[in-house]
């Protein structure tokens, strides 16, 4: 109850700041519009009111974004190309495929790195380097290269999503597989356990808390990758395509609506993984 109140306070505070910022940023634009239409006898109240309800504001007001979201999510049939549900499903599909590939790749790399010491030194620099290249520069190249091999549609976007999501999974799982304390490892040595046995009976179960933390970061990264890929190749639709279309036509309200849809999708994914993690950890008796 107390935390609900705290959360509500923060949200209300943020919305208040947003309204003030919207009024301040849009006021000069609105003043110009009043001047162009030959209207000079407006009050400060009129100016603020109009600034918060412009058709193409610099920063749309919260109620404008909410109205746009209502219109595009609930009031538009999901089969329509204007519906955010339609585009959200496209983005979700790319994200999930990319995330599945990325986390499988990430876990596989982590297993290799932990099992073979020389791989740690030889592969980790490349893995880190792969993430220092800006994805916005790399995405068009991946699309073009894959197109050469007739790989089009969802696949190139899933590839870009996978490219972004494997890294946090690798880093997190390497840490997780190395999380058993020396005593727990010594115990396995006293049994003359093989490396595979130590992995299956100790390292893998010990990594469970790290697994779900890695999955959360990986899922969020996959969604960013999918959206960036859609901006690169926007004719197939998706939330990224809506962002691009909005910026072409100066439809700031539409951009913000698409942004919020992407954020909600990301939050839903991360939240679902969090729930799965809590259930799994309770079943594994990590927590009372």
């Amino acid at each position, binding site marked *: 109850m107390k935390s609900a109140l705290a959360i509500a306070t923060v949200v209300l505070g943020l919305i208040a700041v947003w309204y003030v910022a919207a009024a301040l940023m849009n006021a000069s634009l609105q003043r110009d519009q009043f001047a162009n239409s030959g209207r000079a006898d407006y009050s400060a109240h009129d100016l603020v009111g109009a600034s918060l309800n412009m058709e193409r504001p610099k920063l749309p007001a919260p109620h404008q974004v909410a109205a746009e979201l209502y219109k595009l999510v609930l009031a538009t049939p999901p089969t329509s190309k204007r519906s955010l549900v339609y585009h959200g499903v496209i983005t979700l599909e790319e994200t999930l495929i990319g995330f599945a590939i990325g986390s499988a790749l990430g876990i596989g790399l982590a297993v290799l790195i932990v099992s073979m010491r020389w791989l740690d030194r030889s592969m980790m620099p490349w893995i880190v380097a792969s993430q220092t290249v800006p994805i916005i520069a790399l995405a068009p190249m991946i699309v073009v290269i894959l197109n050469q091999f007739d790989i089009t549609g969802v696949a190139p976007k899933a590839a870009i999503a996978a490219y972004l999501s494997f890294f946090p999974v690798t880093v997190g799982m390497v840490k997780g597989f190395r999380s058993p*304390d020396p*005593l*727990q490892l*010594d*115990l*396995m*040595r*006293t*049994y*003359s*356990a093989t490396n595979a*046995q130590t992995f299956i*009976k*100790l390292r893998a*179960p*010990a990594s*469970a808390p790290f697994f779900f933390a890695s999955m959360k970061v990986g899922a969020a990264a996959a969604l960013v990758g999918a959206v960036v890929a859609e901006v690169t190749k926007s004719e197939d639709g998706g939330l990224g395509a809506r962002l691009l279309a909005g910026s072409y036509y100066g439809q700031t309200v539409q951009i913000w609506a698409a942004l919020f849809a992407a954020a909600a999708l990301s939050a839903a994914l991360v939240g679902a993984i969090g729930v799965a993690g809590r259930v799994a950890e309770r079943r*594994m*008796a*990590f927590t*009372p």
Partner: protein
Amino acid sequence: MDVAAAPKLKPNDGGKAPAADAAIEISGVSLRFDTGDGPVEALSNVSLKVARGEFVSFIGPSGCGKTTLLRAVADLETPTSGAIRVNGMSPHEARASRAYGYVFQAPALYPWRSVARNIALPLEVMGFAKAEREARVAKGLELVNLSGFGAKFPWQLSGGMQQRASIARALSFDPDLLLMDEPFGALDEIVRDMLNQQLLRLWDVTGKTVMFVTHSIPEAVFLSTHIVVMSPRPGRIIDVIACDFPRDRALDIRETPEFMGVANRVRHGLREGHSYDG
């Protein structure tokens, strides 16, 4: 006094065991750790023989190498020089043939496994069949008075119960040798007394050879057939004290003059070891 020259411990079962039957033979073992501040002489020319069925305690201040010696016997550390034989094998062979069970300072139970599955862990690693595992786990739980707690998880158990579970785990595959590194160090006096009695009974019933590291004098005197007193910098043996109370001794022997006498000799040895410091 040259105690480093292999003080030979006589078996307490009437001397029927010949020297070749020694469970542990440590001869001239030195072990040096290379740390950031230069080399540390953890063990210096340590020699010792332990006969089968003995309960030998190792006592000394921290840094005297008692844990290192136990770990070297277990093949968890490798001596810089000297030789160790465990049941006539090298420590590596002994570890490979699962000759010993090791009980650590902390219970080191795996938190995602129930108590029963923790005890079954070495059995799983060693490839025992499921029925055999279940039978041995039930026997182990009974041995350490934990019957009925098999389905509990480690966090649901007190510290003493956790350590008992770890003892059952070490005994589950029936090794000849039990290596115990301050197993009750973190427990309070009352629990420790109770566990000491249980351990003594367990030793009597199973007839295992036990190497037991402690820094409690009463604990060492109460449990052991021989007490090895060690001293730090460099880690070495300064005295081996026989302690021939009956095997089924009760806690109240601690008030007898004989007990006090042995305890005093241990205390004296420890003090003598400290005077080397300077």
